[in-house]
């Protein structure tokens, strides 16, 4: 244990990477699942140990291969990315047991082992982006996670999944290339790729190189925003989420966009924020405007969507708007709200997509008109959907309320009353689309074709109910979510110039 302890940061990434290589040699889906499950369950243990170390002893700096930063690659863990590490690893660990049956139903037997291989690679990429303190290393992990995500999406049973994957491949690659252009410009100016070192060098040279630095900020913001599906760069997301295998959708919606948000926060605050007065640039205003557009337009589209998974996908675009709104507000409460929503939205959307996956598992469709009366046949699934749905709306007593409370307080800080009304107003749109699903499933009589439907098996039901319970739990006990998010936000804002 003592020998392993200092190397936990490397293990966090290396374990899923090696696991993916081993799974690639497996032929049986069940074997691949067993290994993926074991490794996934090891991840939160490491992540929690790391977060605990940072909360008690300050940031961890791990020098990969023993090379000193800024020359070598540094893994740097502070409250913010420790928090995101725990989120990503814990969410995937909880939903992992669900995968076996759902994937067996939706993916051909001979491709199942590949599915788990790609999943482990994706997990490795996501954790890598989060843990690394090196700009180019983050790009490499970004591409590892993206390439495996394209495959995960393409494994969907519908032929439109291929098209969605191709669309995402084009847009995702453009996004990653924009990111790497931005990093290239920063490297030209500072001669460093270490994020902290970059920030330190960028400050003094700001005045003479302002134009290049702003171009770099623009490229990085646009590139990462493509990945996190900030409106209007979200076009790839609805199809990708709608046609990917259900479990993959739940996994990606809960983790992939969240990690991209983390990367944006890291650049806006820790790199550019530390080097200059970001208030002087219009970036926060632009982010707020786009977030508001996402909250309203995407939620509005969701209201008219009849494909349950597509509806949830548009809702995701809208909910990401709340997270980025917190980033745009850039004050203690606002940023805490955004970071808390990172967790809360991950938990709620995981529950919603898992519920949609359970419906597909039983009746083979998620078109809204065919779900009439489903509440009588799959009561626990629909109940979990309802709880998480009310969380999206932000009903008091659910996790969503906490996020919106912090955001509203953050909006009041500069005295923006209108913003509070907009936050509440857009929540009502969520009430409409969630309410529509509940009306169809609970108030209508079930048709004869639903006669045999029932709640899914325990391995699928347990993660679903756990996420629904977490939605309520995080609505009351906010020590772990808002508490740590607040610490992270404080550290980020203290680093601003």
């Amino acid at each position, binding site marked *: 244990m003592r020998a392993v302890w200092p190397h936990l940061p490397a293990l966090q990434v290396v374990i899923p990477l090696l696991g993916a290589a081993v799974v690639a040699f497996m032929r049986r889906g069940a074997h691949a699942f067993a290994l993926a499950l074991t490794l996934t369950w090891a991840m939160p243990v490491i992540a929690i140990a790391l977060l605990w170390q940072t909360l008690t002893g300050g940031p961890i700096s791990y020098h990969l291969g023993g090379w000193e930063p800024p020359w070598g690659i540094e893994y740097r863990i502070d409250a913010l990315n420790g928090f995101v590490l725990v989120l990503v690893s814990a969410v995937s660990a909880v939903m992992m047991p669900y995968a076996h049956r759902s994937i067996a139903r939706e993916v051909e037997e001979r491709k199942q082992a590949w599915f788990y291989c790609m999943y482990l690679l994706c997990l490795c990429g996501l954790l890598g982006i989060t843990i690394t303190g090196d700009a*180019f290393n983050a*790009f*490499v992990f970004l*591409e590892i996670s993206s*390439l495996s995500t*394209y*495959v995960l999406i*393409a494994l969907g049973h519908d*032929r*439109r999944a*291929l*098209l969605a*994957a*191709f669309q995402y*491949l*084009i847009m995702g*690659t*453009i996004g*990653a*290339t924009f990111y*790497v*252009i931005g990093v*290239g410009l920063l*490297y*030209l100016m500072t001669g460093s*790729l270490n994020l902290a070192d970059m920030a330190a060098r960028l400050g003094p040279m700001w005045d003479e190189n302002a134009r290049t630095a702003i171009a770099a900020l623009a490229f990085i913001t646009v590139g990462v925003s493509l990945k996190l599906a900030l409106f209007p760069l979200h076009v790839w997301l609805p199809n990708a989420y709608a046609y990917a295998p259900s479990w993959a959708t739940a996994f990606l919606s809960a983790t992939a966009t969240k990690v991209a948000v983390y990367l944006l926060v890291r650049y806006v605050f820790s790199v550019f924020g530390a080097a200059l007065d970001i208030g002087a640039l219009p970036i926060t205003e632009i982010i707020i405007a786009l977030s508001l557009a996402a909250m309203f337009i995407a939620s509005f589209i969701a209201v008219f969507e009849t494909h349950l998974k597509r509806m949830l996908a548009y809702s995701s675009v809208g909910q990401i708007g709340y997270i980025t709104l917190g980033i745009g507000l850039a004050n203690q409460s606002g940023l805490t709200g955004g970071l808390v929503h990172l967790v809360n939205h991950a938990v709620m959307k995981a529950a919603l997509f898992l519920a949609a996956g359970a419906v597909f598992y039983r009746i083979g469709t998620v078109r809204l008109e065919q779900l009439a009366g489903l509440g009588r046949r799959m009561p626990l699934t629909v109940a979990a959907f309802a709880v998480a749905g009310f969380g999206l709306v932000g009903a008091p007593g659910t996790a969503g309320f906490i996020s919106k409370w912090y955001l509203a307080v953050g909006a009041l800080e500069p005295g923006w009353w209108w913003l509070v009304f907009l936050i509440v107003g857009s929540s009502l749109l969520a009430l409409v689309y969630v309410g529509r699903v509940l009306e169809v499933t609970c108030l209508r009589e079930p048709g004869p074709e639903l006669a045999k439907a029932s709640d899914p098996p325990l391995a699928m039901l347990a993660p679903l109910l756990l996420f629904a319970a977490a939605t309520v739990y995080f609505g009351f006990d906010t020590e772990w979510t808002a508490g740590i998010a607040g610490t992270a936000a404080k550290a980020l804002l203290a680093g601003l110039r």
Partner: protein
Amino acid sequence: MSTLKTLIEHYNYVVTIFLMMAGLYIVVARGNMVKKLIGLSVFQTSVFLLYIEPGKILGGTPPILDPAFSVYSNPLPHVLILTAIVVGVATLALGLALVVRINEAYGTVEEDEIFDGDGKA
């Protein structure tokens, strides 16, 4: 005239930006998926230039310590781009594999025809 002079002095950036824009334009303007991927590759390749060009210093030698030389070229961009090339190859390979599968499923690689044929865009 000074603008022209700046452009000529920085002709390497002009080439990079031209390739970048050309690649991006092909991705946006073409409906054929294979052509889209070609555009994407051109776009990615332009970034390789963006990194490698500034690493070269006129009169600089490879970074091998020797008392006879004092100016060295920066080797790091080359190493970074080696990684980026691998990523580019993987992306292109995966993209082409997807196009093959799309062609099997739809019988075409033209986006317009696919969206028309799918009933629902």
